[in-house]
């Protein structure tokens, strides 16, 4: 993996991940994905049969990747080590910050992709559907998820939104 | 309006030359068509680029006369794209010629010819029975369908056309028109624009080849037009076209022995040879160029399907 200048956000998440080993992070991710599934059912309509697909969200500047299975009956979001990636239909690779912005501010995915900030491989239709599905959500998915965790959630969200990045 | 007695044998037609052939090449070509082929209807005219039109206008009357003397029906085809003052004038004038039959390729021509008998070319986007009905009601008595229309849709069009007393023509040979533009891609390839093109398209009488960056032949550039690399070829499908009542089989002029191509399709339409013999002869004539029939089968146009069951129900 290439050496990456980590943003403050990525370093923050990495430190959190060090404190919360993957088995303990998992219930948190479960709550997040179930909350998103419950409050934004229209996402699944737009995914169509791709709700049964597996997406790898490769946050390249974090020590783990995320695996998403958006099945409305059993939505799953797991953090896995890169050596343990399961078979998957599509992979979206990008820095944590660019991926976070996608689901927080609805930052233009096209602009991110065209500047090769995001890289897509595998089933392109799966990715296009996911992108269109996420775009049909009012407000911020990230804020929604953070809302589950009260004060802690708001703290994490504001750390992640903190946009100035001091040079390393 | 003409009555719809379907002829026992579909007409064999020759579409308008898409390319910019030299005057000599063109004259020789049409002389052969007149004297050596059983082609029934010949479409004449510059359809792609208005800049080329004056060259053709010179010998057009002589060529038309030669073909008519040989017993061919001559139809004049109009421009597919009409935008400039000149193109608008050429088109309107062609619609008001009066005597000769005209094939309209742009809705600009429809205004002038509205209510009088005329033909519609493949650029008029007649895709369905409703559109056909509207235009037939305004004077269209013969329609050449878009090359991308799949077989089952062609059958439905033929059925609707028969009820309206309208002829249906389908392209059965030659490069498929895939796109048109206002920008000239021939000129662009040579670092020029349409205005100062110096007619560089004349260098490519069968279209300028475009390959992918892997070196795979993909498309052909013909001035403002983009065409398929492959020659569309409906061979096994001819029997089916006859069955469903298609009244015209269009051959597009390519840089191959078109007299022999016409002979193959003549034999096919008369049921005098089987598909495999036609296939052999055509492959020989077109050596070096792949054949395709994907559009007709609802698949990617570049693909070739053979031994398909002739059942589209």
């Amino acid at each position: 993996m290439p050496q990456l200048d980590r943003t403050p956000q990525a370093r923050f998440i990495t430190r959190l991940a060090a404190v919360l080993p993957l088995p303990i992070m998992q219930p948190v991710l479960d709550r997040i994905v179930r909350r998103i599934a419950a409050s934004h059912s229209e996402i699944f309509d737009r995914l169509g049969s791709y709700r049964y697909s597996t997406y790898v969200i490769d946050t390249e500047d974090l020590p783990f990747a995320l695996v998403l299975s958006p099945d409305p009956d059993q939505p799953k979001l797991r953090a896995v080590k890169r050596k343990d990636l399961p078979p998957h239909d599509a992979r979206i690779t990008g820095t944590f910050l660019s991926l976070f912005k996608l689901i927080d501010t609805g930052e233009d995915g096209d602009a991110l992709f065209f500047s090769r900030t995001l890289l897509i491989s595998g089933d392109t239709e799966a990715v296009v559907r996911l992108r269109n599905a996420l775009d049909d959500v009012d407000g911020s998915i990230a804020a929604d998820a953070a809302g589950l965790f009260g004060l802690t959630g708001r703290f994490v969200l504001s750390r992640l939104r903190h946009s100035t990045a001091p040079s390393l | 309006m003409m009555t719809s007695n379907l002829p026992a044998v579909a007409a064999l037609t020759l579409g308008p030359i898409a390319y910019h052939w030299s005057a000599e090449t063109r004259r020789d070509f049409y002389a052969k068509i007149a004297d050596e082929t059983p082609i029934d209807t010949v479409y004449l005219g510059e359809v792609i680029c208005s800049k080329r039109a004056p060259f053709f206008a010179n010998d057009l009357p002589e060529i038309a006369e030669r073909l008519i003397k040989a017993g061919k029906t001559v139809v004049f085809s109009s421009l597919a794209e009409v935008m400039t003052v000149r193109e608008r004038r050429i088109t309107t004038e062609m619609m008001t010629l009066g005597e000769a039959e005209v094939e309209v390729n742009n809705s600009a021509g429809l205004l002038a010819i509205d209510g009088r008998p005329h033909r519609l070319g493949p650029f008029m986007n007649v895709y369905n029975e409703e559109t056909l009905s509207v235009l037939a009601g305004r004077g269209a008595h013969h329609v050449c369908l878009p090359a991308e229309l799949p077989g089952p849709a062609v059958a439905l069009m033929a059925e609707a056309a028969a009820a309206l007393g309208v002829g249906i023509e389908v392209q059965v040979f030659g490069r498929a028109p895939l796109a048109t533009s206002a920008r000239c891609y021939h000129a662009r390839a040579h670092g020029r624009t349409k205005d100062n093109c110096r007619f560089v398209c004349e260098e490519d009488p069968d279209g300028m080849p475009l390959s992918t960056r892997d070196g795979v032949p993909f498309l052909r550039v013909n001035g403002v037009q983009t065409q398929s690399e492959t020659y569309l070829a409906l061979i096994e499908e001819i029997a089916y076209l006859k069955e469903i009542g298609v009244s015209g089989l269009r051959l597009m002029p390519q840089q191959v022995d078109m007299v022999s191509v016409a002979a193959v399709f003549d034999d096919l339409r008369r049921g005098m040879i089987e598909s495999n013999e036609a296939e052999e002869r055509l492959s020989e004539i077109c050596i070096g160029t792949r054949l395709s029939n994907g559009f007709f089968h609802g698949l990617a146009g570049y693909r070739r399907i053979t031994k398909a069951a002739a059942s589209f129900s």
Partner: protein
Amino acid sequence: MPLDSATSELVCPAGTPAALRTAVDAGADSIYCGFQNETNARNFPGLNFTPDQLAGSVAYAHSRGAKVLLALNTYPPAGKFALWREAADLGAKLNVDAFIVADIGVAAYIKKNYPDRRLHLSVQAAAASPEAIRYYCETLAVKRVVLPRILTIPEIRQIKREIPCEIETFIFGNHGLMVEGRCSLTNYTTGLSTNMDGVCSPAADVEYRPEADGTLSTRLGAFTIDRFGPDETAGYPTICKGRYIAPGRPEGYYAFEEPVSLNLARLLSDLIGAGVNAFKIEGRQRSRSYVRSVVSAFRTAVDDVRAGREPDIADLLALTEGRKETQGAFETKKWR
């Protein structure tokens, strides 16, 4: 409600209900959208509106004084006309403010069954001359024509003098130089048709292939559309935006066009002067944030121009697809 040339209607794209609300809130006068099927020319996977979503969107737009235009701008192949008929019936029932059509049969159906509804002629009908436009106005009662992006301002002015209907022109977004509604490149390559299925270079046939040397090749079906070095900005493999090899161009070149985006913000007053009634922003497949940014910027720009002020359009550059901007054909014919 009749529109006059003083209106300068801002017509904005919406691929989802969220995008439509975003556009309305950002100041759009009209929003155009389509159903989740091949009746419109942006039939992308996971995009567009269900009937219920359209109903809700029309209510939202109307309550805020905005209009909804339903795109039915593809060509039904024989045997499938019922789908377009149903879409038209549904649109009429839901009180959309206009239908954007290309196929003559579809236009005739709406004219016959809903004679009081507005018909707008899509750019997919490729009506680029006064004669063509007049034909549609006289035979199908079309009230507005969306002009192809290839016309210059003097040409637009001339057209306006000779036609009885309103004019809508594109001012921002994806720039196509192929004649719309006449392209079978996608069907040739994939078996799905732009005209009949409303798709262009469909995602299902797209592959991004990273190569060992760090380059990225983009493919559509069996064909490589382009290749990008590590420092190059990649693009979606739209066929007419790819790079190819020709005799005399062995290095691979943009045979058809370079990926640029249209931005006519500086020509707004000229366009109004030429008689343009409505400005169209392209991008139903773009995100909410694109819609928000572009619509707000043009809302301000149009309002500025109409009040006699200089519009500020600096922020719009970042949104263009390939990072290159053009004013396209509108200023000069020299590019042809």
